[in-house]
């Protein structure tokens, strides 16, 4: 590299560090800028950044190598990422993959000789209802067919040099019919709930949420009011409200719809939470795969600032200052785990922390922090506007209220739907035209595979908990293939810090390959199932604890189908 190029590079980095702040927390945003601008992160860059942020170069290296969207290797101007997750697989991703390889003349993981294209796999792009999905730089394509691959690549080729990788993109997404959703009514002016809350004492807000019985919509189902109460109790001038928009669970895309159609509701919910716990800063942690949503969200935030709904003296409440910033993820599913998310925001590898302490006590930068899901925040203004009682009366005793479901797979109507919690799988299947399903995956890759015999089970925290991912498997689906797809996902997405998850997923994946070849004895399968139990009990975080779920439930329910198969090798 020429001296002048290096100087220019250094100048850019200094500029970005100034923009994001000269502390470790800005490491990932700065790296993302470098990645976007230069296509890779060189050793020289890592050393400069380390020097400026006063950390060790190997720490930068360690972070860069953790995130899928950051890398050392030079990538093409167009990074083509094909979703390989189950829903897209069921909709023919394999043929699209083949065509991409044929058309570009490279394999996955490679870059074309002219440096124009890099071909990569992606894990769940949140377009499960309209797969196969393809991400080209920040632009998303859905329902891709082998035929359209050619057009997409041609479009890139013809625009090469006209719009670079930075270009904000047109969207090619099928709209979700949201007309009947509660959000449509409440979210109409983007302030109804917030105005309501600002007339209330902070403790009354928490009480109202408590009465509604709202539980975390990300899937874990922790009572929202309790989380807020704990954070409110801690004495600290600096508290954070973080919105977990790292929607990465295979088969989940309802947050994408909220972020697209109801961002105001989410921001309202954040402001209300801030008022309730006494926070002055909000952060939306938006997954890197949703970068195309960033500009609209930024615009929305600006609009809210102009309308006095963010900034100082929010909604006219003297002394209540609250603003929200958007921070991007960089391609790591595990960052959906709240402590991993916080680590990531602090410029670290997205590795879940030991708990206790919990974020409500020691969160972002050591300050009390609440992390809630996009949908959880969106329900908050609805509850305040329509009343806690309204929400409480819907659903079951312990799983109150409505829930958005992301439904994909072998059914007539894929998409996002609003139903009360407590709905049975059978009822759901009837509504979306999936009555002939032989199994349903509830809760994504981390969830459970439910056979037809159990379709009367309810989707609720006390029975089948889910963040909203429902994947329907028709009568012809190969369930071992499904299990393999899920394990492949975890094999890539485990953070790798704890032994049971890091090695356990690998062993189970190898076991599935043995099953495919007809080489797995019943005895070894039992060993693997026990290993799965250990992973559930002894892993450090929710990812490891749930990663064997799909495998275990598929083995349990479809053992005959799987053990009886004829070896592929034959």
């Amino acid at each position, binding site marked *: 590299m020429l001296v002048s190029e290096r100087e220019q590079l250094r100048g850019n980095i200094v500029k970005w560090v100034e923009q994001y702040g000269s502390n470790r927390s800005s490491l990932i945003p700065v790296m993302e800028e470098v990645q976007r601008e230069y296509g890779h992160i060189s050793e020289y860059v890592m050393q400069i950044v380390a020097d400026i942020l006063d950390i060790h170069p190997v720490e930068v290296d360690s972070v860069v190598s953790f995130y899928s969207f950051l890398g050392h290797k030079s990538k093409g101007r167009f990074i083509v990422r094909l979703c390989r997750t189950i829903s897209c697989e069921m909709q023919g991703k394999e043929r699209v993959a083949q065509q991409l390889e044929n058309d570009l003349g490279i394999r996955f993981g490679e870059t074309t000789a002219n440096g124009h294209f890099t071909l990569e796999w992606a894990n769940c792009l949140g377009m499960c209802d309209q797969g196969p999905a393809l991400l080209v730089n920040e632009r998303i394509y859905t329902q891709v067919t082998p035929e359209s691959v050619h057009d997409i690549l041609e479009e890139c080729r013809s625009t090469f040099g006209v719009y670079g990788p930075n270009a904000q993109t047109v969207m090619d997404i099928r709209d979700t019919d949201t007309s009947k959703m509660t959000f449509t009514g409440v979210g109409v002016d983007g302030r109804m709930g917030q105005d309501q809350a600002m007339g209330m004492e902070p403790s009354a807000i928490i009480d109202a949420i408590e009465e509604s019985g709202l539980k975390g919509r990300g899937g874990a189902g922790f009572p929202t009011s309790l989380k807020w109460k704990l954070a409110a109790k801690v004495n600290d001038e600096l508290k954070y409200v973080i919105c977990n928009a790292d929607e990465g669970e295979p088969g989940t895309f309802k947050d994408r719809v909220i972020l697209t159609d109801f961002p105001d509701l989410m921001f309202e919910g954040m402001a209300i939470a801030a008022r309730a716990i006494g926070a002055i800063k909000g952060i939306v942690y938006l997954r890197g795969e949703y970068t195309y949503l960033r500009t609209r969200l930024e615009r929305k935030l600006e609009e809210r600032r102009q309308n006095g709904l963010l900034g100082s003296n929010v909604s006219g409440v003297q002394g209540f200052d609250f603003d929200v910033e958007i921070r991007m993820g960089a391609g790591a599913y595990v960052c959906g785990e709240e402590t991993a998310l916080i680590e990531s925001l602090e410029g670290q590898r997205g590795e879940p922390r030991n708990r206790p302490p919990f974020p409500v006590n020691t969160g972002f930068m050591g300050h009390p922090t609440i992390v809630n899901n996009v949908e959880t925040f969106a329900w908050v203004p609805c509850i305040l506007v329509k009343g806690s009682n309204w929400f409480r009366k819907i659903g079951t005793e312990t799983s109150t209220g409505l829930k958005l479901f992301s439904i994909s797979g072998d059914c007539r109507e894929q998409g996002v739907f609003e139903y009360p919690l407590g709905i049975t799988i059978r009822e759901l299947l009837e509504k979306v035209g999936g009555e002939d399903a032989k199994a349903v995956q509830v809760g994504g890759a981390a969830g459970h595979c439910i056979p037809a015999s159990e379709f009367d089970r309810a989707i609720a925290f006390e029975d089948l908990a889910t963040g909203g991912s429902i994947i329907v498997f028709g009568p012809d689906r190969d369930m071992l293939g499904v299990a393999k797809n899920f394990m492949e996902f975890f094999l890539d997405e485990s953070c790798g810090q704890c*032994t049971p998850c890091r090695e356990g997923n690998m062993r189970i994946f190898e076991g599935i390959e043995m099953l495919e070849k007809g080489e797995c004895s019943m005895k070894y399968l039992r060993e693997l199932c*026990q290993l799965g139990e250990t992973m559930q009990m002894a892993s450090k975080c929710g990812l490891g604890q749930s990663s064997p779920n799909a495998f275990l439930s598929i083995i349990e329910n479809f053992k005959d189908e799987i053990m009886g198969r004829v070896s592929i090798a034959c």
Partner: protein
Amino acid sequence: MSDLLKTDTSRAPGSQWIHRSHYALGIDESVEITLHIDDKEITVPAGTTILEAARKTGIRIPTLCYHEDLCVAGVCRICVVEIEGQKHLEASCAYPITTPLNIKTHTRKVRMARRHILDLMLSEHYGECYACFRNNNCELQSLAREYGVDFFRFGHPDKPRYKVDRSSHSLVRDMDKCILCRRCVRTCIDLQEVGVLEVGNRSCESKVITFGDKPLRDVVCINCGQCINRCPTGALRANDPSDDVWAAIDDPAKHVVIQTAPSPRAGIGECFGLEPGVPLTFEMNTALRECGFDKIFDTNFAADLTIIEEGTELLLRLYKALVEKDDSVAFPQFTSCSPGWVKYLEHFYPDYIPNLSTAKSPQQMFGTVIKTYYAGLNGIDPKDIVTVALMPCSAKKFECNRPEMCDSGFKDVDYGLTTRELAQMISEAGIDLPAMPKSDFDDPFGTATGSGVIFGATGGVMEAALRSVIELVCGIKVEDLFEHADIIPVRGFEGIRFMELPINKVGPVPDLLKHLVDDWSWLEGATLKVAVAHGTANAKRVMDDIKAGGKCSECHFIEFMACPGGCLGGGGQPIPTSPAIREARAKAIYAEDAAYEIRKSHENPAIAKIYNEFLTDGPCSHASHKLLHTHYMPRGKYIV
């Protein structure tokens, strides 16, 4: 000014410091909590971890990633226990007790999980125990035995995945044996603040990396070897030259001389099953003769020599600054006997190289003296002499291979052996070290002084230097100021220690230094300010304080040791290490010092002799500069 009082230098997130930063968690340690572990009742202060509580009760919970010196990771999961009412098992090392709990440490679930975790580690652990230097001293192996592992449930690799990194003079990294407990990472980044090792990639691709995954030789590794001492398996070890040493011993044409540093004597017993803190100095002499070494010398002689040269250098710097008003003289003067520290400075604070004493370390001084003075005295051709240095240190291996360390006209020190490697050689020779009769060191260097001995502990170099400076400059006995000549303020394990010594009266200039100054009157009324730091994380704090013009910048002389505890905690010492083990070794060293008749470097008759016979123009003169002093290399931290 930088915050010297800050004790938490860790970069680890707050949550991983549970046992050290309860304040951050809002845990009130004054609250006592009564809980049950395996039905035993125990009361502990709030914030105590389950592991600590269990240990207090005498209940054994296995650990791998946990280490007393390091912040909590909670990643290996071998220490999981069952807490009544909780669905998941919890890592006992990472779980602070804040409410009464009912804990079970060996239920079916716990045993199954631990066994599986071991099985999983073994499914990725390439290598055979009998071909591993940690055989019989491996935490993974011990646990496999403890948990009755008698087959590889999930397989065992039959091919290596990684290439062994043998690029460094000091360390060998074999990532095939790594179980990703991250002790080395926490050692390198948190404990030592060097920042060579981190975890790279994720999931099953995770591995401990250097920057750019480069060989150790090409990164900012200072060779301190602290990672070796904390590695539970054989993934990290020192670069072992013992085969070459045996070959030299077996070669009748070679005259093989070994010098032994003070710290290995205080530690080597641990390799033979003794409690830490049993010195085997004179038993070792006999064992070394049995092994076939031709001469056994005491590095303490060279330590005394270092004190004279380095102390004189300090006095000369002071003279230049105070009398000649030369403001280019660099202060504070830094000690240079710890090669890990020297390389740390060369990488991270190269602008401060002028502050480093030019005096070589004792090891290197001795090497030069053996191949010049000793060779001459005995009429041996220095090319036939092989000098071996027994050191508690892995960085000494790098030091003796520095290209400039050839002032005798030959490689001054041919091989650096660690305590562990020598123990291995001794047992290979069938010698039961603790049972050996005692014998003395060889002449002409004989047995040195107590000042040389305490070089092994943090603060020892400073104490030795002060003993001599007080007597040579003030003309009084150290004992007049400090009982038994024990300069207590510079002892101990606190990270950074300060001491001020007012020079109220001066004495006559001793003969040894008459060639340099006429009198000491210019020092009368001055106050000598000194500091001591051990572990490079503390060294960093001192350096940053100097940069910021803080308290440390006012010092005249600072002792730095790269390793926590000083040489007795060196990277070549027996494994394991812990604060208690290091304390026991320190006790042994100070006891040995107290037992010596001569305890001050300048009173060592062999020192007087060498200045009379060989370095006749005295300390810091032309001859000593040529042979006993060196220069350094500004390396910087950027890797091209």
